[in-house]
């Protein structure tokens, strides 16, 4: 076996272990360790991605001395490695972009705890990406939930604690449903490993016995993961959680945590149930309807909002609706569009959160729109970045959001019966997006005479500006050279089967 095949295992264990190590370190060292770990994991994922692209074969890695149905396994293909690389990039940029705000938002003595949680979160995301075993996935989903809850309430204002409680209640409902579905699945198939379950599922569908419990199990798992990733009717915890936590947390939560669950759902669809069997159930219609509802109602709530960070949070609800709409189409093209949207939304939403904090900082810390008037002149970098993010969200060419909308539209055209609904809702949602994002952009570029707030120059915030530039670059790269990424996604999906 090639040495590179050890990299997924190394990256999971490295990030887990660094969590333990950070508990003994002072905050400054913990920060360095955190950055180093994220970089190292990112580099390993990049090397792994190149290796996988060159061999074109996914590989299985035993976690222990025992082969397939007896021991744990992890598995790496192009999509997994690419996702891990992307998650690391976003996480590094989010941490770097929010670092200057951390001392003001979190008590000094709790900084190292923050880095522990980030490390644990990274390891759980990696494990969710790489795992080939359902029960391992459940355990790491719990780590993900707990550390995300920690990230929400590390800034201890009343709102965040309330949001954390709501988040935990919803997440635990979701975990319960996921675990129940998993147990029924285990009872029907006798396996916990994804590939073995898939074989048994195929047998069950061929035999016709146990079909009803199988579909119920799949539905329970899907609903559980939908609740956890804040699909529209289950999003009550989201605005407060994203709106009031520290800026790095908000960026990480919105762009990575919910995406981790969605990626797990994709894995379940492809590697556990099988894409065709999943598409023959009614579940995709439910996902489709919820996705459409989320797209419209999320945007409407965002329009009503008077607080910039809550507005961005509500926009997340709409974007997650897009992703589920792609699942609901039930075609390969829809799936590719959804996965591309996962990437583009992660890149854009964290950019928006980080840019918004720059704007509110120069407006006396107020997040109300009325105080943000002209903020873009006071902090030019944040203004440009926010505009770029907004354009991407609305779907202007050159940015990543445009490509994902294009892919969604292309996918919708191929689907009978759902074409009209998805195209109309896509159009309405784009208009609504444009309303609230352009409203904000106009507001921050409006001129005012009297301003009591002082501006900020490049010299005061080098690291922050560089982060923003990287974010914008990431967005533009996704938007301009989308074809290689789409090809990679298709190749990865082919490897899933």
């Amino acid at each position, binding site marked *: 076996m090639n040495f590179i095949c050890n990299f997924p295992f190394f990256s999971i264990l490295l990030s887990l272990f660094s969590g333990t190590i950070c508990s003994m370190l002072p905050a400054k060292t913990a920060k360095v360790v955190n950055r180093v770990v994220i970089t190292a994991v990112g580099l390993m994922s990049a090397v792994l991605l190149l290796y996988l692209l060159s061999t074109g074969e996914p590989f299985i890695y035993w976690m222990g001395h025992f082969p397939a149905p007896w021991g744990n396994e992890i598995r790496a293909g192009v999509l997994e490695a690419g996702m891990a690389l992307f998650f690391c990039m976003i996480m590094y940029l989010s941490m770097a972009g929010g670092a200057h705000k951390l001392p003001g938002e979190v008590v000094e003595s709790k900084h190292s705890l923050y880095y522990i949680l980030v490390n644990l979160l990274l390891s759980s995301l990696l494990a969710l990406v790489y795992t080939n075993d359902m*029960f391992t996935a459940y355990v790491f989903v*719990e780590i993900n939930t707990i550390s995300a809850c920690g990230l929400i309430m590390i800034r*201890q204002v009343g709102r965040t604690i309330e949001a954390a409680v709501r988040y*935990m209640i919803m997440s*635990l*409902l979701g975990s*319960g449903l996921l675990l129940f579905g998993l147990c029924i699945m*285990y009872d029907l198939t006798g396996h916990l490993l994804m590939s073995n379950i898939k074989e048994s599922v195929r047998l069950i569908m061929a035999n016709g016995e146990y079909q*009803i419990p199988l579909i119920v199990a799949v539905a329970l798992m899907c609903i559980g993961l939908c609740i956890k990733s804040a699909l529209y009717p289950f999003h009550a915890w989201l605005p407060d959680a994203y709106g009031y936590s520290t800026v790095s947390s908000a960026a990480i939560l919105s762009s990575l945590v919910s995406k981790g669950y969605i990626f797990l759902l994709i894995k379940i669809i492809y590697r556990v149930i099988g894409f065709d069997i999943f598409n023959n159930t009614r579940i995709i219609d439910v996902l489709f309807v919820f996705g459409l509802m989320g797209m419209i109602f999320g945007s409407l709530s965002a329009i009503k909002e008077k607080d910039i960070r809550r507005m961005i949070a509500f926009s997340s609800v709409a974007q997650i609706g897009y992703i589920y709409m792609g699942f609901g189409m039930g075609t390969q093209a829809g799936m590719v569009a959804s996965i591309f949207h996962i990437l583009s939304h992660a890149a854009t939403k964290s950019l928006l959160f980080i840019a918004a904090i720059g704007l509110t900082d120069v407006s006396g810390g107020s997040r109300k729109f009325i105080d943000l008037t002209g903020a873009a002149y006071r902090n030019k970098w944040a203004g440009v970045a926010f505009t770029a993010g907004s354009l991407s969200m609305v779907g202007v060419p050159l940015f990543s959001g445009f490509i994902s909308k294009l892919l969604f539209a292309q996918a919708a055209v191929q689907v009978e019966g759902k074409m009209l609904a998805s195209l109309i809702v896509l159009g309405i949602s784009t208009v609504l997006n444009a309303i609230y994002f352009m409203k904000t952009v106009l507001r921050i570029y409006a001129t005012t005479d009297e301003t009591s707030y002082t501006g900020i120059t490049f010299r005061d915030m080098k690291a922050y500006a560089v982060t923003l530039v990287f974010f914008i670059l990431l967005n533009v790269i996704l938007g301009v050279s989308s074809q290689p990424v789409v090809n990679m996604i298709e190749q990865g999906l082919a490897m899933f089967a």
Partner: protein
Amino acid sequence: MGQNLFANYGEAVSAILFCIGFTNLLLQTNLIKKIIGLNIMDSAIYLFLAEKGYIAGRVAPIVVDGVTSTEAYINPIPSGLVLTGIVVSVSVTALMLSLTIRLYTRYHTLDLDEISTQLKREGK
């Protein structure tokens, strides 16, 4: 309706318990009750799993006198999964309880809706 409902009475009980826990989690206004509901829900799932491993007339999977025939022992996998699950639910319970304490010291109530109204009213 299938024919195995009465054979699977243990699972049926666990489904009912699961739903009782679920209802508690949804409907109770008091956070402590919600947490108890959560625990009941988790226990119900573990009961379901343990029922899966049980085979009538066999004993616990602890090797006695070197007998390693399959006929002698029950399925060990569910027990292992439940052990892992119990640890998870204890951690989550501790976390939820500490959140409760924190909320109470701040707002002096355990009703989430009341807290939300209070927060909105303060306009923070």
